[in-house]
């Protein structure tokens, strides 16, 4: 921790020197006929020193035990809430959606990720690539077909149940 404080002090010193000493000096020199881009160079140096100072200050903030404790507690609290929310949503709506013929969010998400995975496997990533394992294509295709057939079957089943009701 004290080492990090030293880093911040060093960066602060660099920034103060660049901003309060070198920048005004460069401005004065340019006004009195110095090189044309002196202010610009001194300005960028001050900016770089500010970035260095900000990075060190951020690191010190992260290393602060209070910030750590607060972040840890907030993360855990948010995750608990989300977990509770997920469980409650599943409990309330799991039986409701199929009754009205709609898929649940979990089913929808699972289907989306499965489709994304299949797309990744099927889509050649580039024209330069030679794709070797032709056998795996047929397996993937079969899997895709099975998914589509299952979706059709589920829809038919839901339709039949609605009709019966």
């Amino acid at each position: 921790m004290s080492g990090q404080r030293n880093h911040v002090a060093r960066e602060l010193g660099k920034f103060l020197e660049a901003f309060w000493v070198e920048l005004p000096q460069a401005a004065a020199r340019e006004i009195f006929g110095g090189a044309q881009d002196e202010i610009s160079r001194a300005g960028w140096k001050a900016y770089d020193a500010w970035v260095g100072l900000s990075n060190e200050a951020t690191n010190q903030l992260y290393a602060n035990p209070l910030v750590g404790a607060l972040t840890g507690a907030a993360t855990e609290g948010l995750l608990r809430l989300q977990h509770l929310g997920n469980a409650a949503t599943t409990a309330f709506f799991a039986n409701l959606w199929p009754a009205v013929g709609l898929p649940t969010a979990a089913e929808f998400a699972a289907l989306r990720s499965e489709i994304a995975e299949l797309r990744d496997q099927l889509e050649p990533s580039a024209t330069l690539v030679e794709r070797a394992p032709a056998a795996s294509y047929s397996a993937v295709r079969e899997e895709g077909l099975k998914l589509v057939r299952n979706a059709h079957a589920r829809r038919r089943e839901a339709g039949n149940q609605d009709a019966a009701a």
Partner: protein
Amino acid sequence: MPLLNDIASHWLDGTVRMFEAVSRGYGSPATDPEPVTRYREVYRAGKVALRRYTPEVRMHRTPVVIVYALIKRPYILDLQPDKSVVRALLNQGFEVYLIDWLPPTKADTELGFEEYVGVELANAVHAVQQSEDVDQVHLIGYCFGALLALLYTATHPEAVRNLVTLTIPFDMGVREIGIYHLVDSMSELAVDLVTKVYGNCPAWMVNANFLSMAPVHHGLDKYVGLYRNAQRDGYAEMFELFERWMMSDVPIAGRLFRQLVIDLFKRNALARGEFRLGGQKVDLRRVSCPLLNVVAEHDDVVHPRSSLGLLEHVGSTDKANVTFPVGHLGAVVSGGAMRKLWPQIGAWLAARDFFEN
């Protein structure tokens, strides 16, 4: 004022890129850019797609297998013709294989180090052994990939001729990098809740962790850098590619995430010699092959002190640390690394191959 206009415009472009990444779910093989170097996919199973790159003139018997990290997409290793680790090795006459880890899905939440090292990586190396008709390979691991390569070598020492670990996060008790304190403050319950709520650790969480490492850089300074270097040849193109890669995070399998955060990071089990794979303690003394441990001097992702201690824990007699004056990514994309570091790594491997043609 052109300065403010340009920086604001770069910042807006960056924000659009970020939203696009969020909407497509960050990285996936389908969103990779065109590969720079031609390859053939020789094996695909489980969570691995194995790419084979063939040199124009092969000069070494033992093939090189690059074990990439599980965090983002691997095209950073073949980003541009003159900034490509793959090409740097091909130009030295090595047959190169690259392990492209396929992102885990909901069905993969129970995958841990046992599966990634003992099944996926072991099968990929076996595929290389069969394809090349060799008993041993050179392993090069980058970042998290170096950790996987090290664990593989410790559990399959007979299959590895030489091991190169590049920016390996070995001693995770080192807390020199600010964000590590925040990750450390996450309770084990919170880690459990991540996997209960999401299954795997989502890509956005991985990305947020990286962005938080340097918020000033990602929020402003990189756009200022683009403005200041806009006239430099190729800078804008490189910036675009690099930003795309920065947003190519993939999820981390749930169980692996728990092992990574709790066992490796919080308990520092590997450096303490307490890490277990499938119930067996990992004995790093079993790593007996020659080992080159490459450390990036200005690394702000894996602190050099985190990598440097590795040599004391392995059983190899032929072992060395090489510290190179670059950052974490500079080790695989900088011009200096392409000119000096990779020829050095190639020469080190060649000197320890079975025989030269």
